């Protein structure tokens, strides 16, 4: 364990020497903070306010309860008036004290007074507490402008930060999970590592057939219903079906053990998996994403992240496979089997930690391209639901009026900075983890 810690510390030391990468890393931390606090940075409700002698923290109070309602006593009529926090326009109330968030607009909010592309330097108006529409003070200005339906660009940027980071991480998480599983199997067993009875080998095929039948044909309606009621439930049922498939296949192969006289043969695991990886690796990814997303009537971000992730998995599988093929021939692994360790333990405890370096490097670059892919889809209006505000969809709303340069420049810069940041982190990681550059 101490050795592992020392290695991490050493990598961090190396990484720190690369200044652009280090700056990018701190920037990433900042972006994560912005994403986590997005509802406190850009919100139409005040952070703190005093109204009719009563103190509220609307932005905080609605974090977990969106439609929180409270009431105040109107001194003129002596009646209680209801305040539903998220639909109240606090600007129209006579607040005694107020602290606004840095951007006093929510991402999805339509500012009806500043519609039709209010320029950052243009004339902005708001409705004050006396019900007059007057020129907006500095705090209520849209510093980065608005779009056609009056959404604040700055608020959209803050809200989009979380989505961009989430897309990158989730897509690459999915890719890493499947990529590592597939690549490790191919690399660990190779073409000669898995020796079984010929009977087991032969029996696995009918096993596969029955596994497919009981996992997918019998459960067909269950699967379809699960996918109809939600992506998450669908995936759970899919994993269950895959589990049934593998249990039945392994069960059939296990029966082969009773044929004591059967000769031992090697299963060409690597050839089989490598061919599949190559096939999926040469698929035109973006085109595939666009085409597949056309099938889904209900658009969802989860689906986009899932497809991007699945299509990146072969790359990671390829990297992991190459590392495993190298490491499995090292002495410490060769001696682990005679010591009585199981395959699973050797794969996950002894080889995997040493094989992860290229995967981390790829993931940094992969997150950058996942963010580009998602924003391209949002830009085209395919994939994400129309009411979700992302960086790509902000740029896309400039296509109706090219004079609105702020709709292009600011979200574009946000994407550009994020992508550059991940690319620089990737380069830094590669330099830090590549043993050839170490002294």
């Amino acid at each position: 364990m101490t050795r592992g810690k020392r290695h991490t510390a050493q990598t961090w030391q190396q990484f720190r020497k690369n200044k652009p990468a280090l700056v990018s890393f701190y920037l990433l931390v900042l972006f994560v903070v912005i994403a986590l606090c997005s509802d406190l940075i850009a919100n139409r409700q005040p952070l703190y306010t005093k109204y009719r002698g009563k103190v509220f923290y609307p932005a905080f109070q609605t974090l977990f309860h969106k439609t929180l309602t409270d009431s105040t006593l109107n001194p003129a009529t002596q009646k209680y008036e209801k305040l539903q926090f998220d639909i109240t326009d606090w600007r129209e109330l006579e607040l005694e004290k107020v602290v606004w968030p840095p951007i006093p607009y929510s991402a999805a909010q339509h500012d009806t007074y500043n519609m039709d592309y209010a320029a950052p330097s243009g004339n902005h108006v708001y409705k004050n507490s006396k019900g007059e529409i007057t020129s907006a003070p500095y705090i209520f200005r849209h510093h980065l402008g608005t779009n056609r339906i009056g959404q604040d660009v700055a608020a959209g940027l803050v809200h989009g930060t979380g989505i961009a980071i989430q897309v990158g991480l989730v897509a690459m998480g999915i890719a890493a999970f499947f990529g590592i599983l597939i690549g490790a199997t191919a690399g660990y067993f190779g073409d000669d590592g898995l020796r079984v009875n010929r009977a087991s080998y032969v029996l696995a095929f009918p096993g596969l057939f029955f596994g497919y039948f009981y996992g997918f044909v019998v459960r067909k309606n269950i699967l379809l219903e699960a996918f109809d009621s939600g992506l998450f439930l669908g995936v759970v049922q899919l994993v269950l079906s895959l589990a049934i498939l593998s249990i039945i296949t392994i069960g059939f192969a296990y029966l082969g053990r009773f044929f004591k006289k059967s000769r031992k043969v090697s299963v060409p695991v690597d050839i089989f998996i490598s061919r599949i990886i190559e096939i999926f690796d040469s698929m035109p990814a973006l085109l595939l994403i666009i085409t597949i997303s056309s099938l889904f009537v209900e658009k969802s971000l989860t689906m986009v992240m899932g497809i991007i992730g699945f299509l990146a998995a072969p790359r990671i599988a390829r990297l992991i496979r190459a590392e495993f093929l190298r490491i499995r021939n090292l002495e410490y692994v060769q001696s682990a089997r005679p010591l009585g360790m199981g395959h699973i333990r050797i794969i996950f405890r002894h080889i995997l930690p040493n094989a992860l370096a290229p995967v981390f490097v790829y993931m940094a670059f992969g997150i950058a391209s996942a963010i580009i892919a998602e924003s391209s889809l949002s830009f085209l209006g395919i994939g994400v639901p129309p009411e979700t505000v992302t960086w790509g969809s902000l740029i896309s709303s400039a296509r109706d009026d090219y004079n609105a340069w702020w709709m292009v420049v600011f979200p574009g810069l946000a994407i550009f900075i994020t992508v550059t940041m991940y690319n620089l982190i990737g380069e830094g990681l590669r330099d830090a983890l590549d043993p050839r550059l170490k002294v």
Partner: protein
Amino acid sequence: MTIYLIRRILLFVPTLIIISWVAFGISVSAPGDPVENMLNASDGGSTINIANKQALIAKKRHELGLDLPLFYFNITSVADGKQGAASWENYVPAIHFYGTQNQYHRWLSHIVLHGDFGTSYNTQLPVMDAIRAKLPLSFSLTLLSVILAFGISIPLGMYAARYRERFFDKASAVVLFMLYSIPNFFMGTLLLVFFANPQFLKWFPESGMQDALNFDDTWPLWIKIQHWAPYLVLPLVAYTYSSVAFISRQMKAGAVEVFGQEFIKAARAKGLSENAILWKHVFRNALMPIITVFAQVFPAAIAGSVIVETIFALPGMGREIYQALLNHDYPVIVGVFTIFGFFTLLGYLVSDILYAIADPRISYSKS
């Protein structure tokens, strides 16, 4: 070498088959019934009475082969399609073989033998006609962009390697790295906003291929090209810049490696000028890895065409698939996807073969 080529071509076939499965899968699982979509599009679905419509649908289904089984074989339970089956029959598998009388076989043979992708729901015209009309533009744009990218980035990479660690190298590295991180839809929109907009600079026409009022179909080709040129400048920039960034980085890396080798020292020692070394010795040896880059540039250009053609309203394949997506015109989506997929795989195949010819080590190391 021969073995490598055969293996590489053998890999091409299953990949193509999988592309065809994906395309077929999309056309089968597309929302809505194809026959009803077709009828609704042709007459608004109102003029025919219900009974006639049912008969018409059944007839049309038979014509299109939609009443056939989906694939060559199918695994079901014994109970499937049987009246009053016992519950245990649900758990007994049955395999059915259908031979070539199935939808997939029919679909594929129509494409391979007749180039027939069906008819578009929207225009009621054969999908192949639309593809044939749009393919030349997309293809020439892609080709032009690839040629342009190599033409710019090879000298760029070479000079960066020659003046390594000097100002030119460092400045170009930073600029190219930044260009590489700009998504092409952002670049395209940015170009339109600032260079085709009366509010800023109106250097280029904002969209389309030609001026509808002035364009004359009887013009000789070179006048047509003159007319098209200003329309294509911005799309080409949006198409090319990221490949330039990518290729010149690769080129520089290759050239730097060659510069470090012994025979360059020998060339210097015998008094060859630095320029002669650069172009005679380094260039030839550094060119090889660039060939594989072709494999990565080509599919990227194809995917990029969807975005670039949409932004600049160019009537090519990329815009065609985008419009079809918005209209849920599935025959067109499947057709364009299949053609694009085919060309992408062909691009990979050709560049792998070129690479194997240029660098024999590849074909030996992989066996």
